[in-house]
């Protein structure tokens, strides 16, 4: 765990970041000793009026220069490697994560759990579970910052970004917005609450959501009229959505897209941009008709169809 008594380090990765930070402090101290030590010594020894040997230096200065060029260079590369390796771990979510979804807007965080529970400016988490957040913004750029986890990710409108962590300590931690976002930027935050798994399960039940995220998406899918074209076998007006998620989609442009969250989002808001091969450009845009949270629900529904196949194929 962390070499420091504070700040709170509530994940294993936070401890690793603290070790790197300590390494940097030690290297900095080494350099400061190397620079200020001789400097202060020279300032005393060679101050004007004091007797000292001031004759010209008879060494090849280039040798000295090469030494203090090459050694810092090697140390810099070492630091880079250490930090880059840890960064890779921080930025790559493991596959087995629980999912939650975050929408930032001026000036609040709106959170949805896969089970359907919704929160504002609070995020309840089970201890020891890997959590992956998928995040976007309704307006300007925000940044989801949990100091106790040593993680931060800018939340950018128009795209999905992810952040992951595995809480290792029960407690309540700060949640901040770290990217300046307007008047009440400094009030855009709240708490992350790490609970025992059984308490978390009880909390989920107590929230008593009407539907889980995918079911809410399915309802929306019908209410918005998506099902009119994407379900039913009579006319081939729109592609079926069963088994689509996560796979390749051949596009009318000849390219192949991967049907991930971003692609589905773009299809809902900008249907003309990445049209599926073999279909006419009939789909209207839903820009302005669905909120970012609803898009997340729709994606959750489409993802829940990933392992299914269209009914008519099953009948063959």
């Amino acid at each position: 765990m962390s070499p420091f008594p504070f700040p709170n380090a509530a994940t294993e990765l936070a401890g690793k970041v603290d070790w790197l930070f300590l390494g940097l402090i030690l290297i900095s101290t080494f350099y400061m000793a190397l620079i200020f030590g001789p400097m202060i010594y020279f300032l005393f020894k060679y101050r004007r009026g004091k007797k000292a040997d001031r004759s010209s230096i008879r060494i090849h200065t280039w040798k000295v220069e090469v030494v203090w060029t090459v050694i810092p260079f090697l140390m810099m590369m070492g630091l880079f490697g250490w930090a880059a390796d840890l960064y890779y771990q921080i930025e790559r979510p493991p596959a087995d994560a629980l999912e939650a979804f975050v929408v930032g807007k001026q000036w609040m965080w709106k959170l949805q759990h896969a089970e359907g529970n919704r929160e504002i400016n609070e995020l309840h988490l089970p201890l020891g579970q890997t959590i992956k957040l998928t995040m976007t913004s309704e307006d300007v750029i925000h940044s989801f910052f949990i100091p106790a986890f040593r993680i931060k990710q800018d939340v950018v409108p128009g795209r999905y970004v992810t952040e992951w962590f595995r809480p290792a300590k029960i407690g309540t931690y700060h949640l901040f917005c770290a990217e300046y976002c307007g008047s009440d930027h400094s009030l855009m935050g709240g708490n992350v609450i790490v609970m025992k798994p059984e308490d978390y399960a009880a909390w989920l039940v107590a929230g008593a959501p009407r539907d889980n995220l995918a079911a809410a998406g399915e309802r929306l899918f019908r209410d918005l009229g998506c099902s009119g074209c994407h379900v039913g076998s009579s006319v081939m007006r729109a592609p079926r959505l069963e088994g689509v998620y996560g796979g390749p989609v051949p596009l009318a442009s000849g390219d192949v897209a991967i049907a991930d969250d971003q692609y589905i989002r773009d299809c809902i808001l900008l249907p003309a941009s990445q049209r599926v091969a073999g279909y006419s450009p009939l789909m209207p845009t839903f820009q302005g008709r669905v909120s970012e949270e609803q898009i997340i629900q729709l994606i959750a529904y489409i993802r829940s169809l990933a392992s299914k196949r269209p009914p008519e194929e099953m009948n063959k």
Partner: protein
Amino acid sequence: MNPIEIQTVQVQPETENYLSAAHTVRSWLLTTDHKRIGLLYLFSILIFFAVAAVAAALMRGELLRPHGAFLLNETYNKLFTLHGVLMVWFFLIPSIPAVLGNFVIPLMIGARDVAFPRLNLLSWHLFMLGGAFVLYSIIVGGVDTGWTFYTPFSSTYSNTHVILMAAGIFIAGFASILTGLNFIITIHTMRLSGMTWFRMPLFLWSMYSTSLILILATPVLAITLALMAMERIWHIGIFDPKLGGDPILFQHLFWFYSHPAVYIMILPGMGVVSELISCFSRKEIFGYAWVAMASVAIAVLGFLVWGHHMFVSSQSIYAGMVFSVLSYLVAVPSAIKVFNWTATLYRGSISFEAPMLYALSFIGLFTIGGLTGLFLAALAVDVHVTDTYFVVAHFHYIMVGGMVTGFMGGLHFWWPKITGRLYPEKLAQLAALIIFAGFNLTFFPQFIMGYLGMPRRYHNYAPEFQIYHILSTAGASILGIGYLLPLIYLVWSLRHGKIAGANPWKASGLEWETSSPPPVHNFDTPPQLPDKPYDYHPEADSE
């Protein structure tokens, strides 16, 4: 043996100099004399500095309490925007180049003026026009975007006078470009015959590198601000995703200018420090060629590291790694400079006049600023500390601890040349020490609270950070006194300071061969090029 230099006390004849040549307002506002333009810049940037310093003082006062003392959220946001915009574009960028550079570059190379004196004057007028736009935008209500103008907040969501302020910065950018162009051509074409590139003072190498950045990077800033304004006025989708744009594109363009601009705000300080360390230790600079090339290396590498501002922006993590490794490379030439300055002291004959105190303070503060840059270049640590007070502390150590300290050192060093008068030495030494102490008390606590997670640009904050804010505000008060003192005694010295003579520091360099203040055309008799740059003899000057 080196011949012992004989210093003759020069009796100042009452000849006409550049200050006494004319006294009308017109003779100042329409002057093409590089020395007068330098002073026009000095006067203007001090006004901008004062306004920005008042903003800083208000913010530091406000931050004494976790939930604010007397400012609205909007007001606080406008204050840090105006502090950043004025300090970066209207104080730091012109500070050493446009004030000291304008004044001493032609003198250092034995020239009568810069290559294009009228362009030089135009540059100051553009600068003032830009400044007028910015001040006007503040008077009519201010801007709340931060000096970084991140989209889509600036282009779509902010309800403040973004266009006015951006227009001011856009216009002032042309002043930077003209100054950079002028310096490059001046240094290329107007050096005294015999002054080869490797016989130039290192200040000129740093000015040359800075000028390259000014002319190559500033146009990108102008384009970026223009695109942002087009989106704001005509809703042309460039950066706002709702209009089909990409907000991250803005950050790439902005930092492509603004990271090199950081080096505009440190290289000139390094140039000054090379002059000071050498003069006050009576030693030729150690590793001249390495220090000179380090300036060029910093200027070139500075163009390749902009993405290190964007490690958590959602840019590709592999791009992040490339920018991280390049950022570590910039540390190497910076370290070379610091090592060479330290080595210059070895076997020197060191005295501690105020300019030297500023030079030593520069080395100390720049070293801390540079080393904490290693923390920020470390990808995994940056994820935690970016956008916190750690970053605020880091760049103030570079920009204030480095550049402003370098500027103060240079201003004291060349003050006798500029005015013909000496400033009061004891008082100046005291001020240098107060500034050093006040600076550290202001900004060191910010490293700690940054690592503890205090985000920047926060006006309401969690109570556990209050102690660090109190320390910081206390330091800022001391720092304020430290900056007021020189203002008072320098003005006092204009009338009451001792007559300086041509070369009060017994410094090497052509600017010290002419009288103080210099005549209108700089040299009454052609200057004599010394045998080598930094022609100092510590043994001879050991008493």
